[in-house]
């Protein structure tokens, strides 16, 4: 083929390539998009403001902490002084280990990196960057209920 006659066909070829290429890319996107969406785990039904039965007064003693189930996460209930309860999420704000109450120190302690919080869940030593998420406690009869703090 000589050089003069190549100009128009090349323009046409370019056009065909563009059409086909766009189609191929569009269909490739339509194959990959559902797969990427599929891999995002669906949100589990949120806990909302439901109150959870954490424990009973008869089951916890002063200066003692216990772990309870709060939705999909562990919660920590502490009887700081007789009849005085505090509750928080037991998820360390550093890297997410489950914390525990140390009655010998009267502190909340995370064994993973020796993070420490006070009895209200405020970070006082070690790597934790933030306080533990505090929860509202309500005593009804013998039962101790816990719920998320209202926003704001």
């Amino acid at each position, binding site marked *: 083929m000589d050089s003069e006659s190549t100009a128009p066909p090349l323009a046409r070829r370019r056009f065909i390539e563009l059409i086909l290429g766009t189609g191929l890319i569009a*269909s490739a996107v339509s*194959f990959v998009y*559902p*797969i990427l*969406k*599929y*891999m*995002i*785990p*669906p949100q589990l039904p949120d806990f909302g403001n439901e109150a959870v039965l954490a424990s009973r007064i008869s089951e916890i003693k002063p200066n003692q902490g216990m772990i309870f189930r709060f939705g999909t996460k562990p919660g920590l209930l502490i009887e700081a002084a007789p009849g005085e309860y505090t509750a928080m999420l037991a998820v360390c704000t550093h890297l997410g280990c489950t914390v525990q109450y140390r009655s010998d120190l009267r502190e909340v302690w995370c064994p993973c990196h020796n993070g420490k919080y006070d009895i209200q869940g405020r970070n006082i030593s070690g790597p934790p960057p933030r306080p533990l998420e505090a929860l509202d406690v309500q005593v009804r009869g013998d039962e101790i209920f816990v719920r998320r703090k209202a926003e704001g």
Partner: protein
Amino acid sequence: MSLRARLKQWVDERFGWEALTAPLRKKTVPLHRYSYWYFLGGMTLFLFVIQVITGALLLLYYRPGADEAFESVQFIMTQVQFGWLVRSIHVWSANLLIFTAFSHLFSVLFLKSYRKPRELTWMSGMVLLFLILGFGFTGYLLPWNTLSYFATKVGTAIPGQIPLIGRPTLLFLRGGEDVTGATLNRMFGFHVAILPGIATLLILLHLGLVQWFGISVPPKVENEWKQSPDSRREMRFFPNFALRELMAWYVALAALGALAALFPWNLGVKADPFASAPAGIQPEWYFLFMFQSLKLIPAKIAGLDGELLGILGFGALAAVAVLVPFLDRKKPFDTSRWITGAGVLVLAYIVVMTIYGHFAR
């Protein structure tokens, strides 16, 4: 230098581009009136790859176990975005895969591509077909619904009737006396680990053999080509045939998407080991011809257990099918036509029994 040229150079300096791509450039596909049948093997391979991809995706959410399996599939179908699509494509692709594998088998049989030197290609292909049926059978139980529960009960009871090896086989397949959560775990293990492992190795062997021997030309066409050498036509595998195959795959993917979207697969009702089997219960279509045969066979034939004879008959047929390349010989008489005839008969039997089984109540 463009990125492409630099990449090529990078590979060339290390592995030798010419040597690496030589098999691709050398490989050709014979062109004749039966050439379209050459697409079936590649199509089966493509559907297998789709199964691997969608299967891996399903594994992200599926949980084996009698208490969780049904619920997790339900979760995939209703909660996970495009979960219904992924599962339906997996099931549709499985069905089409079995269909193309059978079509591939019969096209190779009728085009006589199994003959020397391709005996091992044929045999590895036959074993792959059995593995595919095994995939179908083991995967069927995984959603743990009523149909799959009873299908597995019946399907594992059938080999259990064979003398001597029957009972150990049944215990091996069920992981106990009955179909329970233990069976489900076992089928899951077979389906996602053992069978894929063996199948992958066999596919590599199968493809390696196809590459080694080149693509077979049917004897009829070969004769015509011998008489007039000018009529011999070939197509380069790469890129000419590969692009055509790719186009076929593209269409197949679109068909899968359409089938899955328009006819998503049911989940059914959760299996209850203490409920009666539902009326009109049937296996999947690819087991239907055997199912119907066993239903029709009399209880006693010449004093022998009829059902057992049927089971052994199908076993013998499978064994003969594996050995077909060695039965095709010139001496003491030419068996080639007999094999084609038997192939037509078997194909007709499968088709008729499948249709009959579908409509029989």
